[in-house]
């Protein structure tokens, strides 16, 4: 047990006074990240100004065996930055400078606390932008994006964070500064850059990021298509891909999400449709016009009941506003909601949505679905009321069942939000013991005393044994009717 006041005194010897937060009431704002159902008050919060201070903090914590949880903007949805009660919460928010926009090499060098959107804003005068655009992009930090391998609505064409980061400067738990990746397109040795991207703060602390920038497309245009059946919408997505079109964005929403969004932002969505698709195309003017024409044709032939092209930039933004605000919109129609993040092979969409519908009836909880249709990433939003005793637990059980279904049809429990603490039990459904053991062994290569973000992302085998005992009822696995992948 570490004593809060004694430790605060020690940290104040190495950091300016305002960097050390230890009074109970000032610690409260840090007790959770974007997944507010889980809360813990950290022992201490540190807000260093630079990488040298991060080095010192980590060296000290390593020596004293104090757990460290790194935090960006705290927008994460899986509890990845949930504090450790006996540990330091290390906020990188003050490392927030854009160090260089390199037009010649189309790269930007930024500190981890820089907001995602700020990179594109800074690059705009050079005709460039940073492609990954998670929905939280006005608030989320690049460091957090790296930790989670964040996606967004444009990943089908432009990739995830992983595909847009060239180099990381990290600090190891024992305080050594290292560079992973390179200023060029590839780097020597094993691909530690890929390993660190999406590692949820378990392997090291990122203090600088070199990202790729892309030329801003001359024109973007979006088509909205309505369907009276969700499976027909799914087939239309497959048809677009089959015809060789790679849209910049391809999103689907079900009826409950459509209605919630329409009430909230008045995007002009058809509220009686079972599903809508938003298909965005970008590039030079003439080619966009040509491709939009092809997309419209495919959608009509695929059974859309209505196909609408945004009439101007304002309407295009409105169409997207509906989708990008789907989460808060659902928040308006329910006291609480719980957001899931499975990925499935796209052709399984019809089956998966049907089974989610059945679960919804069984649990007595409504569920709205938004879907990154292009890359198979499904976000079911389970509606519940935490004030009703037992409903949170019901929502969690419902969510767990959805994720296990995603695994059973050949997908994964998390496409872009990370495992964090939230999905740690479902990791047991996706990976077998030998695989989990390999993950733990990899962790030990970088953090032998498991001080970085302990207890997150990878479950212990004991935990899985207990979880398995809970879930294999009467010797039967869930979804026995499905082929296992």
């Amino acid at each position: 047990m570490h004593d809060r006041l004694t430790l605060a005194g020690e940290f104040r010897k190495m950091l300016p006074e305002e960097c050390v937060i230890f009074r109970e009431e000032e610690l409260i704002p840090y007790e959770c990240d974007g997944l507010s159902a889980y809360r813990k008050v950290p022992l201490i919060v540190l807000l260093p100004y630079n990488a040298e201070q991060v080095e010192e903090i980590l060296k000290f914590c390593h020596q004293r065996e104090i757990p460290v949880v790194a935090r960006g903007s705290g927008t994460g949805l899986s509890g990845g930055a949930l504090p450790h009660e006996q540990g330091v919460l290390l906020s990188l928010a003050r490392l927030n400078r854009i160090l260089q926009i390199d037009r010649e090499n189309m790269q930007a060098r930024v500190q981890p606390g820089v907001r995602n959107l700020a990179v594109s804003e800074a690059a705009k005068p050079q005709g460039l932008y940073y492609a990954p655009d998670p929905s939280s992009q006005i608030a989320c930090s690049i460091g957090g994006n790296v930790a989670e391998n964040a996606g967004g609505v444009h990943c089908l064409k432009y990739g995830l964070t992983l595909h847009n980061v060239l180099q990381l400067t990290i600090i190891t738990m024992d305080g050594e500064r290292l560079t992973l990746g390179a200023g060029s397109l590839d780097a020597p040795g094993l691909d530690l850059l890929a390993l660190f991207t999406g590692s949820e703060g378990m392997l090291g602390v990122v203090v600088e990021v070199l990202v790729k920038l892309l030329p801003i497309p001359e024109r973007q245009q979006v088509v909205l298509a309505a369907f009276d059946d969700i499976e027909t919408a799914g087939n239309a997505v497959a048809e677009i891909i089959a015809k060789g079109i790679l849209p910049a964005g391809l999103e689907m929403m079900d009826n409950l999400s459509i209605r919630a969004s329409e009430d909230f932002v008045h995007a002009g969505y058809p509220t009686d449709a079972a599903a809508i698709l938003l298909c965005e195309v970008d590039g030079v003017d003439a080619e966009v016009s040509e491709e939009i024409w092809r997309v419209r044709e495919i959608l009509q032939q695929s059974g859309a009941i209505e196909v609408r092209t945004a009439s101007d930039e304002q309407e295009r933004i409105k169409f997207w506003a509906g989708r990008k605000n789907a989460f808060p919109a659902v928040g308006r129609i329910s006291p609480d909601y719980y957001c899931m993040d499975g990925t499935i092979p796209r052709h399984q969409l019809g089956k998966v949505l049907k089974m989610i519908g059945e679960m919804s009836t069984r649990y007595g909880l409504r569920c709205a679905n938004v879907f990154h249709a292009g890359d198979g990433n499904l976000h079911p939003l389970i509606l519940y009321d935490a004030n009703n005793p037992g409903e949170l637990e019901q929502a969690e059980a419902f969510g767990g069942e959805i994720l296990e279904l995603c695994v059973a049809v050949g997908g994964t429990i998390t496409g872009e939000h990370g495992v964090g603490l939230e999905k740690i039990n479902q990791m047991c459904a996706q990976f077998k013991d030998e695989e989990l053991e390999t993950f733990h062994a990899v962790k030990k290569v970088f953090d032998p005393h498991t001080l970085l973000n302990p207890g997150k992302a990878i479950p212990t085998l004991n935990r899985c044994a207990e979880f398995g005992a809970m879930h294999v009822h009467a010797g039967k696995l869930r979804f026995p009717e499905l082929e296992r992948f």
Partner: protein
Amino acid sequence: MSNDRDCSESLCTAVLDAARDSRPLKLLGHGSKAFYGRESVGKPLSLTEHSGIISYAPTELVITARGGTPLEEIEQALSEKGQMLPFEPPHFAAKGTIGGAIASGLSGPRRPWGGSPRDLLLGVKLLDGRGQILRFGGQVMKNVAGYDLSRLMAGAMGTLGILLEVSIKVLPKPPQEHTLMLPAGDWSVTRPLLHKMLIEGIPVTASYSLGEEHKLRLACSQARLKQIQQDYGVESVEHQVDFWQALRDQQLDFFQQQGPLWRLSIPAAANIDLKEPILCEWTGGLRWLVSERPASEIRSMVEKTRGHAILFRNGDPAGEVFHPLQPRLAEMQKGLKQVFDPEGIFNPGRHYPDY
């Protein structure tokens, strides 16, 4: 299909036998990249029998195949559906397998726009040094469950395990490609023009520069091509499919020179000023150099640009082929080797001398 056979069991037995006696194995595909990397000693273990496409759903943009599947079989299957491997893997002089393409981590001319093997690798089924069959990643585009251990296999030169199966993201083939000649001249004049075209969103899919000659491959409609010619004062020639393939496979005269061939991976705008001719790809991000200069001189020159250098061909296979790592990174790499291959049986020394 040429061959469709699951040999996981016999491969597993071979690995267990080797691990029991700590006897190294030399993993072999078609040998198309035998010249590449350091020399490894060990009992040869052929992986080509373990072959065949397991699943390919064009509308999912994913193909899953056994590691020994010939590249040409995969490319043929994709081509029939108007799709391609976006990293344009080099075949060099022989056939090449998909496992070898991933393990070597090498990409062709399309790399800056299409991605690299690690970018496109979605998942692997791995046979590790304990004889365990492990799955990492999957067959879906987005997957952040657990550490990304599948991508660690891309470019690992087979030192961490046998790639029993790989799942790869594929993309539609551009319906039309064209070859464009840029005005003859010095690289210092061409690079700014090239950069202007990139910033302005010209759909380049390959670039080649040697001496005064500069070519681009573009993917666009005929109408757009005309517009580009007008806008930039450049000239299009009949599309040179064979030329771009020869560039990819290093069949051009430049690559037939005697002497050590260096592969310099650097930021595209970096300045490398040498008297030897340099062949540029990736709009400057990849440069090839045939030079007898000491390795230390070349490596330190490239390090200054924030890049790295590989002694690609005609070097000492017992020497340092890949760019040396900073000591702590080398230690981490050895730590990872220990996790996957505790007995050190897979391709020892092929990647770095000490693991």
